[in-house]
């Protein structure tokens, strides 16, 4: 990776995170959403009929993906303010560097949301996630990279539309389905204490999605931001 590409990515990510740190707009809404979803799943279950482990994987990934989506939406909306995206595009940096920066910023954001949501999840569902934390972290990282890369590209694509905030979930959900199915299946196994090597098929699938999504989004970003 060229130094220009990397330095652009770091500058863009640092700027996005600094703005989010100050405004906390996406973070606050993501966290409220995460707590709300976990509470709804918790109270919708009859513990005498459905065990917490039956619902927990779905609850965890619904929380992660939808809370993250609020952050992904914000990624390019802040470039729409005062047409700051034009300012970025006027600079002589590689446009793929801008994509990488946005991706990096989004990954940090989503990781923070996930790190805070996970103990809440453990608390609500009385699930011991800490006995299999490395395995859970691996699956979460792989699935997160897949949906955040597509989400970043689609966020850039819809930012010039009038209903950007509505368009992103509609476009993103079909792409989310395969990696999230893999993540839910693997998480369910991990939480009941099954070894990770029983899920190599799903992990390979997640790895393939990561490579394909990141590569395709990296290549398509240039034409996505062109008017």
């Amino acid at each position, binding site marked *: 990776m060229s130094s220009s590409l990397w330095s652009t990515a770091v500058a863009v990510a640092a700027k996005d995170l600094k703005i989010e740190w100050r405004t906390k707009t996406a973070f606050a809404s993501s966290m409220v959403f995460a707590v709300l979803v976990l509470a709804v799943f918790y109270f919708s279950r009859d513990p005498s009929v459905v065990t917490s482990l039956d619902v927990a994987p779905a609850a965890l990934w619904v929380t992660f993906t939808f809370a993250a989506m609020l952050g992904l939406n914000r990624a390019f909306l802040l470039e729409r303010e005062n047409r700051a995206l034009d300012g970025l595009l*006027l600079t002589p940096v590689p446009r793929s560097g801008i994509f990488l920066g946005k991706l990096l910023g989004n990954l940090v954001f989503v990781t923070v949301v996930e790190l805070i949501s996970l103990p809440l999840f453990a608390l609500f569902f009385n699930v011991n996630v800490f006995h299999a934390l490395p395995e859970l972290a691996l699956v979460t990282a792989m699935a997160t990279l897949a949906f955040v890369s597509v989400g970043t590209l689609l966020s850039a694509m819809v930012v010039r539309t009038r209903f950007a905030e509505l368009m992103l979930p509609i476009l993103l959900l079909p792409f989310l389905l395969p990696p999230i199915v893999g993540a839910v299946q693997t998480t369910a196994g991990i939480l009941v204490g099954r070894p990770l090597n029983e899920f190599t098929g799903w992990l390979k699938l997640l790895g393939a999605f990561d490579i394909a999504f990141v590569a395709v989004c990296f290549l398509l970003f240039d034409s996505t931001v062109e008017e």
Partner: protein
Amino acid sequence: MSESDMALRATGVSRRFGYRYVLKDVSFELRGGETLLLIGHNGAGKTTLIRVLSGLLKPTSGTVHRTGSIGMVAHDSMLYESLSARENLQFYRKLYACCETARVEELLQIMGLSEHADRRVATYSRGMVQRLTLARALLPDPQLLLLDEPLTGLDDSASCLVRDMLVGWRAENRAVVLATHQLADVVELASHVGYLVAGRVRALESTDGRDAHAITARYRELASVV
């Protein structure tokens, strides 16, 4: 015109949105040290032309050739309101990889924003935002300046500053494309004037010492024969 002098060349540039052509077959050349004043009614295509010249918009047909770096002032500031003036300029400095931190401080000083440099842009007045926008445009020390209504919101002292800059850029052999409705403020600083009527450059002439009234009369004459 020799290739080495040429700062900007537009050849047969057209741009349409949907089925509607906003620019039609625009061609001109601009050398270093020349200032082209673009005039036209609202909707004549000035902003679209400047965006096409900057490379932000792709022409539907035709080509734009630029040499050197570009500085642009548009209707929108391209600034982040949650960042301070200094942070905005530092961010762009990193992307341009063009200069030292001292350049940021120098521009803040020139624009009279040093005292407010750590305030968030969201708290700035319209005029202060416009000054900062100019500072952002000047950051890469551009050879070509594209200015769309650069005097909007500026007080008298800031307007004088921009006029002084225009004189300085001419002496420094920089090319400037300037679109404005405030003709009287800048007309004596322009070397050429382009009359944009319904997306076409109806005439591109040397200003030849003409004042704003003469140029407005000429525009009306050209617009009336569309």
